[in-house]
Each structure stands twice: as C-alpha cells, then as structure tokens.
C-alpha cells in the first residue's frame, strides 16, 4: 500500500466524492469530515513514512499513460511537496469541519473532495502533463464554489478567476510542449517527466523564452502583480470555504511550480530574471499592502495581504540559495495556515452579520473576546511575529535574498512595516473601540464548530513557529539538491556565481528514486 500511497491520496477523495452522491443530505457533512479525516491521516502516514534524510523523490509511482507521446503517470514527493500535500489535506479537513454553509451542502462537499484530489495531484505529479491536468482541473471545482455559493458578483468573479488563470496556463502548456520537444530533439524520445527534463541543459536564449512562458502561467496563479486583480474578486465573492482553500492551497500551486519547474529547468534564465522578478515581488509587497490598507472590506484586506505575502515568497524563491528557497517553501505553508485561518475568521463574523465591511464593526473585542484573541494571534502571525509560523519563512526568504541584493531586500523588508500597518489598522477598526452598532451588541462568541476549525490552526501556527525543524529539515534537504542541480546546470558565469555550489558541503543525492 505504501508503494501506491500517492495514488491513494489523490484518488481516494474523488472516489469518496462519487460515493457521496448516495449519502443523504443530512449526513453529508459527517461523511465529508470522515473522508477528509481519513485522507488527512493518510497524508500524515505519508509524512511518517517519508525519510527526511533523502533529498530526492520518494514514493515514486510510474505508469505509462501515453507512452507514444512521452506522457506517464508519474508521481513522487520530496520535502518541497510533502508538506504542501499535508497542508492540502489538512485544510480540506479544517474547511469541511468548520463549514457553516447550509445551501446545497452535498454539492459543496462533493466539490470540495474533488478539489482535494486536484490539489494533491498537482503537488504529487512529476510528469508535466499530469501536473497540468490537475492544475487545470483544480479550476473547475473552484469555479463552481465561487460561482454557486459566492456573493452578488460571484459569476463575474468566478469567470474572471477561471479565464485569467486558464489563459496563463495555456501559455505555460505551450512552454511545456516546447520543453518536451527539446527533450525529443536531444534524446529522440518524447518525455514530459520533470525528472528527465532536469537533465536537459538548454541554451540560454531558449531558457529565457521558456521561462517567460512558464512564468505567465505561474505568475497569474500566484498571483503576481500586475496579474493579481482576479484575486480580490475571487476572494471577495467566494464563500468562506472557497477563500480558505484558494488562499491556503491554490495560490501555492504557482509558487510551488516556480520551485519545481522554473528554477531547476532554467537556472540561467532564473538568474537573468532574478532582479526583474524581485522588483515585481517588491511591488507586490508594498503596493498591495497599500491597497490592503485602503480597503473597507475585511476580506479584501486579507485577500490583498495574501498577494503581499506571496511577494515575499517569490522573493525568497528567487534568492536562489538554500536559505531563501527553503524559506519561501516554508512560507508557502505558513501563509497557507495563516491566511486560511484569517479567511475562516472573517467567515465567522460574516456568518453572524452577513457583512464584511469594517465600518459595520468596532469594539468586537468586548463582545467576542475569544474571537478577538484568535484573530489577534493570527493577525500577529500574518504580520510575521517571531515564534509564529510566518516569521520563519519571511525571515529566511528575506535573509536569502539579501545575499543577492542589499537594496532590494531593504525595500522588500518594508513588508514588515506596511504589513503591520494594514493589519493593525484593520484589527483596530474591527475589534477596538466601543460597540457602536446595535446589531453587534449581542453577537455570540465562537461556537464549537468554529473552534474545531480554528484551534488546530492556532496550534500549528505557533508550533511550527517555535519548532519548525520537522518541516524545515526535509525541505532543506530537498532544496539543497535543487540548488545544487541549478548550480551544476548553470552555464553563464553570473549564474554560477549567483547560485551557490553546495557540492563541497555534503554529498549530493541524485534526484532519482529513493526507494
């Protein structure tokens, strides 16, 4: 079973979703929780069975799909993807457990389970086409979730979300096909296996073009400035569960793909585009933080804050050294936990008041102290306070990029200031002051369902902030091998210089099969 655990992880939720059609409406939530829980336990088992000392792929599975065209069902996890998978299963569980939606809950849970399949699939795929399949497929459940359970502008938002990301990924698809063609030219065989692609050394000018093609797909997904405008709409209109999953997992697909594809495939191009991308990342960080500050809707604040944080992740990724990339991978998890929690928290108040406008609130701290506390913890995590999960990632990302550029990091570091500004301002508007609005006077504090969703997140946010090692170590090992691979593949002098050579430090475990 352990040999096929990834397949199991991917298709178990989908299978369960199909069976879910049979389950009656009243029991659907329990069923959903049960399935998500089993899936989560399975993913924990994956972690347990994972050997953190091996940097390469583990639990590899391979099955020919379209061998004629080099497409294989190829799965595997390394330290980079392992935790994002766990994050996906975790958040699906949390999301379903804390679901307050009552409209057509059956459809919703089935959709969520399908979404879980696609999420796990994206992160477990080692074949570009399989990756692409799940990548695109994930849009569909999300489209439905936003479009069917969302706010007044839901249709506009969902279509925008879908088409925007779809457009980007189509360009990426062309890039992938190009990549496969290069492989074909080099070896006489078609292959979409990422691991096989890793062995290709591309001429620099091709790298640049391909990098751009992949970049478009990823950047829209992340979303990077100026491709980010779908996100506020998607978040603003999506139901709580949609925002949670979107922020926690779906956005990570883009950044994950940078680490999985862009860096190791195009080391020279990565170095070439490092500064432009860093500048975009900085614009994301500061500009969207400002936009977040100007928002009137608390959910939009969190949405824009997501973009801002994604900027830090991008920056860390393009630090191109172990510290930065590990940090960015860690920050992906961290941001997943924190922004997911924040969206859940926004959902709590939305459920009670059916509005997200901050001007409607004020003084909630006295009415809902526990809510305020948890919101406060998560806000501080979002701001990047040490000993919370975000700090580790942000610190490492910035630290990593500092190696590449002093000035840019200094500018990017403004993140910690502007982040504090909009978050504290929003918190103040929501929770501080006296209760002015009659409707807020009798609001109930968190209930059990909500605790069920939030407490684990708080625990994780602090646990991994205090003791990130169990997660950081596997990440580190895998990132080291990625960086070494990049260094070995780099052709230009600058790239060689920018990407550290780790070969002296420890033995490089080849990117192949671990078992």
């Amino acid at each position: 079973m352990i040999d096929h655990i990834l397949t199991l992880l991917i298709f178990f939720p989908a299978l369960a979703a199909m069976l879910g059609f049979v389950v009656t409406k009243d029991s659907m939530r329990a069923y959903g929780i049960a399935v998500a829980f089993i899936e989560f336990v399975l993913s924990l088992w994956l972690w347990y069975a994972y050997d953190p000392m091996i940097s390469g792929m583990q639990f590899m599975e391979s099955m020919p799909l379209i061998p004629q065209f080099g497409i294989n069902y190829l799965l595997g996890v390394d330290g980079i993807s392992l935790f994002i998978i766990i994050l996906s299963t975790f958040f699906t569980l949390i999301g379903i457990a804390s679901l307050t939606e009552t409209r057509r809950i059956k459809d919703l849970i089935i959709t969520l389970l399908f979404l879980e399949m696609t999420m796990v699939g994206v992160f477990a795929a080692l074949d570009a086409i399989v990756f692409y399949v799940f990548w695109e497929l994930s849009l569909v459940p999300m489209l439905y979730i936003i479009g069917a359970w969302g706010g007044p502008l839901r249709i506009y938002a969902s279509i925008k979300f879908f088409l925007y990301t779809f457009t980007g990924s189509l360009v990426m698809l062309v890039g992938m096909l190009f990549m496969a063609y290069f492989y074909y030219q080099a070896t006489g065989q078609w292959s979409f296996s990422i691991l096989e692609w890793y062995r290709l050394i591309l001429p620099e000018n091709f790298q640049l073009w391909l990098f751009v093609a992949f970049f478009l797909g990823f950047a829209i997904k992340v979303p990077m400035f100026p491709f980010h405008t779908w996100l506020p709409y998607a978040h603003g209109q999506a139901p709580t569960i949609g925002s949670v999953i979107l922020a926690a997992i779906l956005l990570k697909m883009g950044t994950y793909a940078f680490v999985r594809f862009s860096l190791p495939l195009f080391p020279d191009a990565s170095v070439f585009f490092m500064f432009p991308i860093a500048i975009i990342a900085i614009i994301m960080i500061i500009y969207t933080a400002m936009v977040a500050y100007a928002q009137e809707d608390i959910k939009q604040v969190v949405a824009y804050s997501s973009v801002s944080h994604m900027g830090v992740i991008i920056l860390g990724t393009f630090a191109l050294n172990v510290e930065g990339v590990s940090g960015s991978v860690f920050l992906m998890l961290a941001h997943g936990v924190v922004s997911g929690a924040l969206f859940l928290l926004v959902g709590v108040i939305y459920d009670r008041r059916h509005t997200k406008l901050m001007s409607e609130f004020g003084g909630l701290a006295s009415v809902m102290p526990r809510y305020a506390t948890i919101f406060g913890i998560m806000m501080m995590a979002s701001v990047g306070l040490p000993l919370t999960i975000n700090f580790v990632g942000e610190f490492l990302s910035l630290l990593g990029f500092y190696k590449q550029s002093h000035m840019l990091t200094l500018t990017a570091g403004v993140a910690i200031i502007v982040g504090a500004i909009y978050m504290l301002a929003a918190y103040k508007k929501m929770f501080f002051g006296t209760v002015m609005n009659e409707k807020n006077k009798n609001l109930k504090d968190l209930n059990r369902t909500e605790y069920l969703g939030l407490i684990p997140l708080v625990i994780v946010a602090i646990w991994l902030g205090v003791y990130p090692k169990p997660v950081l170590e596997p990440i580190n090992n895998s990132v080291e091998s990625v960086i070494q691979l990049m260094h070995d593949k780099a052709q230009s002098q600058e790239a060689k210089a920018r990407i550290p050579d780790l070969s002296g430090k420890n033995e490089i475990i080849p990117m192949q099969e671990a078992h």
Partner: protein
Amino acid sequence: MLEPINVSLASLNLATLAPMLIAIVGALAILVIDMVKGGLHKSLYVMISLLFLLLDLGALVDFAGLFMKNGTVLGFFDVMLMDGIAILSQIIIVAGSMLFIPLALTSKRFHEYNYPEYFALFLFMIAGFQFMVATDNLILIFVGLETASLALYTLIALHNRKKSFEAAVKYFTMGALAAGFYAFGSMILYAISGSVEINQIATVLAEDHYSNIGYVLVSMAFMIAAFGFKLSMVPFHTWTPDVYEGSSAALAGYMSIVPKIAGFVVAMRLFEFLVHSGVVWLQVILYIGVVVTMTASNIWALVQTDVKRMLAYSSISHAGFVMAAILIGTTQANTGLFLYWALFSFTNLGAFTMLWVNRQKNLLPGQSSDHPYEKFSGMVKTMPMAAVMMALFMLSLAGIPPFGLFWGKIYMIGSAVSAGYTVLALIMALNSAIAGYYYLKLIVFMFMKEPMVGYDQFYFMNASLSLKTIIGIAAVGTIFAVFTVNPLLEVITLFVYNSGY
C-alpha cells in the same frame, strides 16, 4: 478502332469498393423493405442502418488489418485509393454515423424519422463520404461530395419546419456555389497537369518545377474557397450557424463531425503536397485562414445567445484549429488531426445529444431559438446528472484536462511546436482561452443561476433510453479518453505515416 481492353478481375481489387457498397446496399435494402411493407417503426430502420454500418465498419477494420500488412491498396483502375488516411477517416465516418443514427430514437416524434427514406439517404450519404475520402481522383471526389451533400440537404429539410428549410436552402445554394468553385479549381489543375488525379498532378507539377505557378495558385484559391466552404473557414463559414440552428440537434452534431473529416482528408490530399513543395503562398494563406477562422469564430461564439449556435461557432473554431494540421503538414500534425477529430466526435456527440434531449417541439415562450442559454439555467438543481454531463462536455470542448479534447489539443499544439510554428501554437493556445468563456457561460447558467420558472418541463423533453445510452457512451469516451489516446496514437501514426503524410 479502339482496342478491346482485357481486365482481370483480380487486378480491379473489387474489395476496395466493399465498404461503400455495403452502405449502398443497406440503403437499397431499406427502400425495398419499405416498399414491401410500409408503416414500420423507425426503430427497425435504425437497427438496419446500424447493422449495415456495422458490416461497413467490419469491412473497414478488415482493410485496416490489410493495410498494416500490405500497405495502400489501389483498386478499380486506380480510382479507389485505400490508404491509411482513407481507412482512418472512413472508420471515423462510419463509427460517428453509428453513434448518431440512434439519436433518431427520441421519445418525441419528429418528422424526418417517419420516412424510411431518411435512413436510406443517410446511408447513401455515408457512402458518398466514403467515396470522397477513398480516392484521389478529383472526379470521384466531386461526385462523392455531391452525393453526400445532396442527401444531407434533404435530411436537413426533412426536419420540416421553416427554419430547417431555410437552413437547407442556404446550405444548398452556397454548396452550389462551392461546387462551382471546386469545378473551376479542378479545371485549372487539369489544364496544367493533364490529369485529374491528385498524385499525378503532384508529380507533373513537381516535374515542371511549378513553372505555371500562377495557374497553381489560382486553382488553389478556388480549391480553398471550395473546401473552405465545406470545412467552414472564415469567410466561407456563414452557412454553419444557420444550418446548425435550422437542423435538428442530432443532425447538427453529425454535421459538425462527419462531413468535416471527409473534407479534411481531401484537403490533406490536395494541399499538403503543395505545402511540402514549399509553396509559400499556400502556407501563408493557410496560416491566415487558420488563425482567422479560429479567432473570429471564437469571438462570434462569445456573443451567441443560443447554445446550438454557440456550438456551431465553436465547431468552426475547432475546425480551424485542426486545419492547422494541414498547414503544418508533418506526420505528427496529421496524426493529431485524426486524433483530435476522433476525440472531438465523442465530445461533440455528447454535447449535441444533450441538446437533442433538451429539444422541445415548439419554441419556448419569449425565445426565438430552441436552445437559449436561459433554458439551462439552474439545471444542476433540477437535473444534476444532466447538468454534470453537459458541463463535462463543455469542459472537454474547452480543453480542460483530463477530458477528451485536451489530449487532442496538446498533441496538435505539440505538433505545431515541433514544426517550428511557435506563434501559431501560442495563438492556438490563447484561442482556447477565449473559447473557455462561452463554454463556461453555459456552465455558469447551469450551475450558478436559479432555474427559470416554468422552464423545468423542457429539460429532458426528448430523452429516451437510447439517447441516454449515447450520452453515457459519449461521457465515458470523454472522461476516459486518456486511456484510449495511446492506442489511438499508435494506430493513427502508423496509418498516417505509411500513407506518406
């Protein structure tokens, strides 16, 4: 005096005629049965047609086996040409027809199915298409084309309502003009090569080193116009939406698949040798044609209010997409063409059948067409499975993996990339994105809107077991396409490659 000619029967390879003859015999059989005993139920004729088509398919499969052993078979004074693409396209034609014929078994009665002749004409039409693809003789192509077309015009009109007559007349008139173009184009080719056989023409032109380039190009202009009509390239496409709207959904779906593959095969035979000989003009024209067809029809599809019309424009766009294969002209691209079309036929079968089961007899109050988007709103709440199915087909058409068309799409784009047509590949990809909008629009209506009051009785108006079965087949074919792609690719590549394309 003319010498008597001795022809040995064996050299004629009469077997090459077998598949078409089976269809013709089937048609005649239906006519005879009807003459012997009238008033039989349509299901009988459906089954007879299916049986004959099955025989037809069997013969084709037999040929396929033969082709793998011996390669191309010529027959009947080399008029018949059973090469790989002929066999492949015939298989698609016959198999596609087999899937569409059962759509006659609706729960509501429609005019055309009361005619046994309908099924006879259907089989004649199939024979016509088969002749069209199984030859490189321009005359036989023409006759086959016209046989099929004339039958098709009649079938459309037999739906017997004003719109279908209008559609048939429009189709017919434009078809007549296109026939004129075809004749004129063939005439010029004949003038410069002294032959009406494409291979011969190619040889002569090559030996002449294209010294009559002006003639060649003008003839190609006429031919592109003629096939542009058949394959609905912009600006020769204008009949498509009207004809699709006017005819029954079943026939519209059929038209989006079968006549086009026949057209593609002929276009492949006719244009590719020129593309390969480096006739830059043709490459440029095809390039422009492909891009304009894809893009323009996509843009027009965006603004449609009727699903069937939208699907009409969408199939124009898909045809444009596939046309790229002719421009690219590599084995991979041609393989992609067949793969794409095989997958497309499943998906489109599903989509049009879904429309067909949704068909009501009279127009909806306040609507001017059969399948306005509004009709589908909130479908997920009233008929979840149907909505899911329809969404599935829409996603497949949009090229969302892992559904059928996605695989065709990546193979086509991949072939464009491999042949160095990077910009074309990008345009193809981006067009898929534009197309995403209108497919999504239907999904939005089905999944995200509230049902229209009083419209619920129109869903599944026309459903019957056989229609549902067809939808099921289409859905299975669409979902599990990924597992069929590899065997398909293997076979198609082999066939296409060994036919010299």
